[in-house]
Each structure stands twice: as structure tokens, then as C-alpha cells.
């Protein structure tokens, strides 16, 4: 589904990603962990095509298409969804309006007709239950005045409606209390399916108690320095990032 090969990316001439290799197959959940500044959010930005990043080397293929050739909206239409770490506020635009515009844009790209208002509303109502949100949310301006937890639930609501093939959750657990974390995780787990893959970016292992990954990768200084099963997350929790990153620096020094 997704194949990242030797990906190098920089901002303002500064190299952030320095040779990422990652393959994600349908239905798999990959967790990407790492200390601050390791390049986790940059990876999410590069995958979704945010402006300001320069790809200097490497390739990304998504469903056998060259992802780097697609505009951000086309990537979204192709089925890539990013749950933002900091969802932005859009004053005056109601949540339901954005949802409907998004869903219809994606449907249109796939040659489907737009949903009419009734069908759309019943779909949205069903998905609202998933993240335990009131209908009031739909008529408030996008993320305006939302609490941290409400913003993240809203991201999962959008994901539930757009039904992406690949969902990238960027620090979805940050700023959540335990109750909100449970609701969000429940929503995400309900969306697991054999043909939907996820990349879960997180700093803490806590989220991975609720969203159980198939693989865990540790990112440090723009490279994946260790990969393993979910038990790797536990080790990190117990010992911190230090033991791997140091080990990694040691190896690097030795090879040099």
C-alpha cells in the first residue's frame, strides 16, 4: 500500500529526514515513536504534501502511484488522511459544512455522486456516536473554541466519515486526559479494517495501550533506528529513548 524508500527531506536547507525506509501493508498499524525533533511530524507533513518541505532524495509510492507527484488535495482524495496534532480553527465555517464539502470532494474524485443533505446527515449522526459527540458540534465553527479533547475527537469524526485507506495520526494523544484518550482510541479501533492501514505517531507508549500496533518503529535524527513488535514500545517506556539512541550513536561512531 505505502512504500517509502530512502526518503530525505529538508526545510530551509536543513535536512530533517535522512533516509527513511518504511513499508505499510493493507490493514497494518505502524507506530512511529521517537524523541522531540526526531522528524515524526515532518514525516506526516511530507506524506500529505504540506508546503515548505523539499524532498532531496528517495521515493514514496502509494497504491503504486508516485505520491510525490500529487497535490495535497489529490493525496487526500486518493485516501490519505491526516489527523492533525494541532487542528486549525476556521471561523465562520461550520463543522458540518466542511465535512460535507470534504466528503463530496472525495466522492467526486472517485466518480461518485454527491450525497444529498438527508443521506449525509444520517451518515454523520451515525458517526457522531462513535466519538460520543453531540449534534451541536456540527453547527459550531470548525474547531473554534473547541477544547483539546473536542478537537481530537473532531479529527476522528472526519476520519470516520472520509473512510481513508491510510490514516496518519499525528500525536493524537497529546493534550488528552484519560477519558478523552479512551474515546478517541475507541473511535480509531472501530475504524480498523483489513484494508485500512494506519500510521500512529506518538511520543508516549500510553496511546499504544489502547491502539495496539502491529509494528513499532523508533525514529531518531531523521532515521528509523529500530523496528520491532509492540513489545518494543514497552521497552521504550521502561528505559526511555536514551538506550537506543546512544547505542545508535555508538554504532555510527564505530562505522565512521
Amino acid at each position, binding site marked *: 500500500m505505502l512504500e517509502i524508500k530512502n526518503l530525505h527531506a529538508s526545510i530551509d536547507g536543513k535536512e530533517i529526514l535522512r533516509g527513511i525506509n518504511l513499508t505499510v501493508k493493507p490493514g497494518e498499524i505502524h507506530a512511529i515513536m521517537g524523541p522531540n525533533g526526531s522528524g515524526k511530524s515532518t514525516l506526516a507533513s511530507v506524506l*500529505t*504534501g*504540506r*508546503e515548505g518541505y523539499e524532498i532531496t532524495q528517495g521515493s514514496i509510492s502509494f497504491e503504486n502511484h508516485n505520491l510525490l507527484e500529487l*497535490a*495535497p*488535495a489529490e*493525496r*487526500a*482524495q486518493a485516501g490519505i*488522511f*491526516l489527523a*492533525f496534532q494541532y*487542528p*486549525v480553527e*476556521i*471561523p*465562520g*465555517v461550520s463543522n458540518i*459544512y*466542511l465535512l460535507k*464539502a*470534504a466528503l463530496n*470532494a*472525495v466522492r467526486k*474524485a472517485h466518480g461518485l455522486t454527491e450525497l444529498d443533505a438527508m443521506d449525509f446527515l444520517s451518515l454523520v449522526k451515525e458517526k457522531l456516536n462513535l466519538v460520543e459527540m453531540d449534534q451541536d458540534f456540527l453547527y459550531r*465553527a470548525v474547531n473554534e473554541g473547541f477544547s483539546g479533547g473536542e478537537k481530537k475527537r473532531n479529527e476522528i469524526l*472526519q476520519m470516520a466519515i*472520509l473512510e481513508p485507506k491510510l490514516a496518519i495520526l499525528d500525536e493524537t494523544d497529546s493534550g488528552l486526559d484519560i477519558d478523552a484518550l479512551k474515546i478517541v482510541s475507541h473511535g480509531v479501533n472501530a475504524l480498523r479494517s483489513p484494508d485500512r492501514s494506519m500510521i500512529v505517531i506518538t511520543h508516549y507508549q500510553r496511546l499504544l495501550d489502547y491502539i495496539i500496533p502491529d509494528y513499532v518503529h523508533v525514529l531518531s535524527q531523521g532515521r528509523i533506528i529500530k523496528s520491532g513488535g509492540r513489545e518494543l514500545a514497552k521497552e521504550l517506556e521502561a528505559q526511555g529513548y536514551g538506550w537506543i539512541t546512544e547505542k545508535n550513536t555508538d554504532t555510527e561512531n564505530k562505522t565512521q
Partner: protein
Amino acid sequence: MSQAALDTLISQEYKYGFVTDIEADTLPCGLNEDVIRLISAKKNEPEFMLNWRLQAFRHWLTMKEPHWSSTHYSPIDYQAISYYSAPKLKNRPKSLAEVDPKLLQTYEKLGIPLHEREILAGVAVDAVFDSVSVATSFKGKLAELGIIFCSFSEAVKEHPELIEKYLGTVVPHTDNFFASLNSAVFTDGSFVYIPKGVRCPMELSTYFRINAANTGQFERTLIIADEGSYVSYLEGCTAPMRDENQLHAAVVELIALDNAEIKYSTVQNWYPGDEEGRGGIFNFVTKRGLCRGIKSKISWTQVETGSAITWKYPSVILEGDYSVGEFYSVALTNHRQQADTGTKMVHIGKNTRSTIISKGIAAGHGQNAYRGLVKILKNATNARNYTQCDSLLMGEHCGAHTFPYIEVKNKTAQVEHEASTSKISADQLFYCQQRGISTEDAVSMIVNGFCKAVFRELPMEFAVEAQKLLGVSLEGSIG
């Protein structure tokens, strides 16, 4: 409409010899008292009307063209204008094939029916449209309620007593350079009178969209809402209109008596010129409402997207105690457009209230200025004003300017002013794009959100059109 039908339609006008008739009805360029006498005579006006025009003209001769706004344009030669001219058909495009294709694309995007597109683009077609008969039947209904809704010329003939009583009571013939010029030479416009206690059952002018296209260069509108009455009036059209006349200097006067309410909504989308601003219209308008009675209310809502230069300040004079004035405005400037617009709220009566919500959007090389005056006079005890003035910038070459003036002469007044300037953020755009929404749709969505507080004041169908219009007007403004 098929090409064949179109051709038939076009050839029809020659059959009736429409062109020659009209051409004979055009005065040579230039302005003097004889011209004014001629205009008045051609319209069979009563004596008082001619005298009023002449007074205005004599006053105008003593005035200088004002230049205090923050707009820039080359000098206007007032002697090079023909002051009485039926539509000039000679220079008009003969079919849609001769019209700027960009204009046609815009009509298509706005969903304007084909036969209307020809009128709007100024194609020389003389055809009778359904709307005329619609107009007539509605006029009948209005007449049953005692509502007068007719052209200004008709009102001068049929209801001279009302014209004589109210004309110039809000915008006197000495008011300002352009208003004086208008008073001297105006050729037509609209007149509305709502009798006591009558609530006008429909939005006036919705059904007259096409007819309104030909109101001319110096338009005069007078609306009177008698005690306890209500009227909602819509002016303008969302489609960009081509016009031969570069200078437009209209005057609109509104008068609300005790407990009466007037809601006046405008969508102004005159031809803004090409991307370099060539050929665009100068729109210098004087619009003012007088809340004469107690608890009267006047509300202006405007969406300004057209014209090369827009210069106007729909204002309210709050004379009656407890009267209410409102001003809701969206002004958009793209390419080389300039807008200097805002309002004046003059509080004279006690417990008067006013609200100003202004949203300015500047894109391309557009320059957008809000200029507003809130004036609380000595006797206006407990007057209140709330002003909110927001600007949205798109790109690096545009500008937004705010000039709020506040004069308070009564200690009990409460005046609030809030202002903000923002840019469409890259984060907002990316957020929408990441949800699959194209850049242009995302821009349009964000801008419409910014304008929501104003759009919700527009009558429903107008609001929908206005939203579409903003989207179209901003196309290509973000790379």
C-alpha cells in the same frame, strides 16, 4: 438556447428598427442649463422638479471634485459625458461571440440563465422577457396594499406631492459634489412608498433583476416607509455588468417614520476592468437613510465586489428616539480595484442604537479602506454604538486600511470599536486541502466564513448568490 434561435433573436431587433429610434434620443456631450431644461422637458416634469435640478446645478458649479478618499484615478471630464442618452446600441457587441470570454465564464459559474447573460453583457438584443410580465402582475398585488413601487420618472408624474415633500430631505442638493451633480441630471431610478401599517409582503426588486440593468449613470432612488410599515429592498445583481458609462454617481434616500423599518440590501458587481484595471467603472454613490420617527429602523447590507473604484458610505441619521441604524458590509477588492467604503451613524435622538459590521477583503493589488464616522450629538442620551471592522488580506501586494472617526458629545454614550486584520493562513488552507478540498474551494470557504456575520443579514437567495460570487471573484488570487 440553440444558435439558430439566438440568431433569430438578434436579427429581430433590426426588423423593428430599434437602433435608429434610440440614437435620435441622445444628447450631445456637455453640461449646461439648457441640457438640464431639455432633460426635464423630455421627461415632462413639473416646474418644481426643474427648479430643483437647476438649483442643484448652480450649486454644483461652485463645488470642486473632492479628493480626500484613498483612491486614485485620472481626472474625469464632465463635459465629455452625454447627460441624456438611451442605451447606446451602436458600439455594443452584436452577439455573445463578441463578448470577453472571461465574462461569459463568470456568468456560467454563477449559473445565470443564457438569455440574461446577453442583457448583462450588453449585447444589443431587444427582447421581451418573462420578468416584465411577472413585474406587472406583482405591481397589481402591491397596488392593492397601497404600496407604490415604480420608476422615479413615473413617480414624478403620478405622485408629485410625495416627491416634492421628500426629495432631497435626506441628501440635499447641496450635499456633496457627486450628489449635486446627480440632483441636476439624474434620469431615472426607483421610487417606493409603503403606506401606514403595511408590511410589504415580498422583497422588492428581486423580480426586476434584468430591468435594473439599465438604470443608467445617474440613478436616483427614494424609499419612504410610513408609520409602522416594513419593507425589504434589494438592489443590484450578482453578475458583473458591462456598461458604457465609466462614472456612476447614484443617490439613494431612505426615510423611515415612526416604528417603520427599511432593510436595504445591495450586491454591487459592476465591471471592475481587466486585470490591469482598464475600463472599469467608477462608482461614487451617496446613500443615506433618515430614521425620522421614534423606534424606526434602517439597515444597510452591502456586498461590494465590482467596479474599478468604489466610493460610498451608506449612512443613517438617527433622529427619532429609540431609532436603530445598522450597517453590514463586505467589500472585496482584487486585481487593481480600489474601495473606500464605510458608514456614518449620526445619533441625534435619545436611546438610539447603531451597529456596524464591516468585512474588507483585499487580494491581488486591491486596496480596501474602511472609513466610518460615529457621531453622538449633545442630546443623544444613552446612545450606543458597536463597531466591528475586520480585514482579510490575501497575498503580498494588497492593502487594507481603516479610518474610524468617533465624535461623542454626550457623556452617557457607549461606543465600542473592535478591529482586526488577518491573513488566510497556510495552515487553514492545508487543513482543507488535506480533507480533499481544492485550493480554490478552500479559499472560497474560508472567505465566506469570514463574511458570515454579514451574509446572514442578506435575504436567503441573495446570500447564496453572494457566496458564489465571492468564490468567483477570488479565483486565481492564491497561487
